[in-house]
């Protein structure tokens, strides 16, 4: 046992040295992000996933019933907890939404929240599922889109969400889809995460991969053949004037077109996959005791009229929710046309001035549906 003890001591000492080096480089760890503001400010999908994985466990400290909002970027920006708190100081609101989340990833965030929150709190809390049609993009498209997914993930041909990717940092115990996560007690998962509290501060300062700086070398782009070719005529410096600012609606329409492409399906066709997952997600959340409220997120009128996916989405969503709403087991709030077009900064997100209006509308609707402690 002498040698094994030595190995363990060395491992611990070297780990401490590494941690020490990190402290010297980036300073001592600050207090973790409060759960209420996990989504803000928006930085990158990876950073948001890291916050969701490493700081959501603070939900364990929650002592009163809460409103947990999950969704994508529109819910992140529309229902900012600080603004919501100003509108309703008596309520505890956590916004766990994540930019670019589809239903699969939303489900993973809910798993993390359920694991962390004491069950007696869950049973007195409201889960707001803030959905919109871009959240129903199939996994095969969302998690292999070169615009959002790192090239190594695409090269591997794996469907892996930002949450799962960032969860790899703590030996898969933080991955909501792993067996270890499902069966390990929360304190063990929490301990695994806490081990990396210091390292986590270093992550945003590092490249995504250790060899990325090497890949940026100009050497790789240098082509010796150019030396062999005759000198090309030098181009005269461009004197074109910068493009004029595009009118707001042109940009917004472009973004809507981008969303249409982003869905990756024949126009107007939405696959069942994410709707099935929504059904399972609602059952799970209800099963653990959450009072579930599905919110159909606002869209500007021109977006609703022009998007090929909006009408089929509305039909399918209402079909999925019909059995629940008719039985009165969940509530459905449609905010889809509740916001005037001039409160959108693009085709889907609120502008800064409108955020408090969005939050107020949601709280008003929730107060009608649910009596909070």
């Amino acid at each position: 046992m002498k040698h094994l003890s030595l190995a363990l001591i060395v491992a611990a000492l070297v780990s401490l040295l590494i941690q020490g080096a990190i402290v010297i480089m980036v300073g001592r760890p600050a207090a973790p992000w409060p759960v209420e503001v996990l989504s803000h400010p928006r930085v990158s999908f990876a950073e948001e996933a890291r916050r969701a994985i490493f700081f959501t466990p603070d939900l364990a400290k929650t002592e009163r019933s809460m409103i947990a909002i999950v969704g994508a970027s529109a819910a992140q920006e529309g229902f900012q907890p600080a603004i919501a708190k100003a509108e309703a100081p008596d309520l505890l609101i956590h916004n766990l939404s994540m930019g670019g989340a589809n239903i699969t990833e939303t489900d993973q965030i809910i798993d993390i929240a359920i694991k962390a929150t004491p069950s007696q709190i869950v049973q007195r809390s409201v889960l707001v599922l803030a959905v919109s049609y871009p959240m129903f993009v199939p996994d095969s498209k969302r998690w292999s889109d070169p615009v959002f997914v790192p090239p190594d993930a695409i090269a591997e041909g794996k469907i892996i969400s930002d949450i799962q990717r960032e969860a790899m940092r703590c030996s898969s115990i933080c991955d909501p889809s792993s067996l270890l996560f499902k069966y390990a007690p929360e304190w063990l998962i929490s301990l695994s995460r806490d081990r990396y509290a210091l390292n986590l501060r270093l992550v945003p300062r590092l490249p995504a991969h250790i060899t990325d700086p090497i890949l940026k070398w100009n050497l790789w782009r240098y082509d010796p053949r150019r030396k062999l070719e005759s000198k090309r005529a030098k181009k005269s410096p461009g004197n074109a004037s910068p493009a004029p600012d595009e009118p707001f609606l042109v940009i917004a329409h472009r973004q809507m077109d981008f969303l249409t492409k982003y869905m990756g399906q024949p126009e107007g066709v939405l696959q069942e996959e994410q709707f099935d997952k929504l059904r399972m997600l609602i059952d799970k959340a209800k099963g653990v005791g959450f009072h579930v409220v599905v919110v159909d997120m606002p869209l500007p009128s021109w977006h609703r009229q022009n998007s090929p996916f909006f009408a089929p989405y509305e039909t399918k969503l209402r079909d999925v929710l019909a059995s629940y709403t008719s039985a009165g087991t969940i509530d459905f709030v449609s905010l889809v046309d509740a916001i005037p077009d001039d409160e959108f900064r693009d085709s889907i997100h609120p502008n800064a001035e409108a955020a408090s209006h969005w939050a107020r509308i949601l709280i008003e609707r929730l107060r009608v549906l649910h009596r909070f402690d």
Partner: protein
Amino acid sequence: MTITSWSFIAFVAMAALVSNLASGNWRARVLFPTTTLLFIVLVMPSMLAVSALLGFVGLIWLATELTYRLRARTPLILILAVILAIFGWMKAYEFLAFLPFASQVPVVIGLSYILIRALQLLIDMAETPSLRPGLLPLFSFLTSWPCLISGPIQRFQDFHEQLESIGTFKLSEEVFVAAAHRMAKGYFMVLVLADMFKHLWTGLEGIALGNANPLALAGAQGAFLAHLFFDFAGYTHIVIGAAYVFGFRLPENFDRPWQSKSFLEFWGRWHMTMSNWFKTYVFNSLLMQLVKRWPSSKLTSFHGVAAFFLTFFLVGLWHGTTWAYVICGLLLGVGASANQLYRIALRSWLGKSRMHELSAKQTYILASAALTFTYICFSVSPLWLSYEQIRLVAKSYGLIGLILAQGGLFLMMLTVLPIIQRSSFAIPISGATWWRPLQIGLLCAVIDAYTFLFPAFGGAFFYERF
């Protein structure tokens, strides 16, 4: 379950515990085959693949029975032909795509390695019928869990001897530390070094294929070979270490390949168990047949050239199922036979003593090593480039672009190889008793920090696809 997952470590720990607590007789006859079956179920992609693998093992058992009973050359050749045809069908070789249900056969991990072990046993049984195994020992041998995914390749005789002796094996702290040391070293190679080079290789591949940059292509070729080495050598360390705690001593697969000075020497140091197998069962047999057919003494040297070409062509073909691997086989065959021809030409031109004199010169050694590694990087490119990509590279780079890329790679090798060769002597392989535990602790801490800071998929081993 993958070899780099926690579930694999848990599997090894539990299996080792049960095996070492069980009485001697049970270990070889019950526990080892049971552990192997459990491992198969855990690593195979589907139950259909498990059934296909077990069916193939059943077929081999039938072949051993037939070989034992018939004991003649012609039936053995027929049996081998049938096995190879079924193997080709199960591997879904592109050129056998016309066979019925070829596209529906499930992917069976480790099938190529099972074939090689089966052929060794059948060929040796023709000479030594007493080797005839029972169904259970045959199953344990062909699918032995530490060697299932990517070797190392063991002869039946060696495996059987070790299997018989595990009953008396006692796990000591020394063996445990040695196992942990090998495994920690392997995990460091796979999770840190192989991952670093994989990222570099795939990144440079993107640049090279996108913009036809010769230096990016050279970098991708070099980074791929480094990735392949750390991935495969790391895997080998892990399984050799895991086998220690069960009393198995698996053969080594690598002997510092970066010290190679020629193409043929490289294959004597890289994937040694496969090279030895091909040398014994393909090269020697081919050479013997050629000498018998054309016994002229003037041709003796050239028999070797032809045998090398065919052997290495088969090595390339064995690695994969697509046309790209046919190209890889041809390039390997050309490399091996050119190396042999060069030896013959140099000897006849300079004479034996001057050739030895030249071979001892440092500049000559360095230039040969750099040329060797440049050609190896070039010849294994079809392992990571598809047939369409090879065509694209040929078209977009043209002859000058390809020559510049290989020239750039040669210069890289000239710069890097002396550093690697010298630094590898600076790291002690063994030493004081505290050295191993110290290394284990150090490696574990570094792996932990690295995998947190730069998480990677840790997907399948590259050789797993073979």
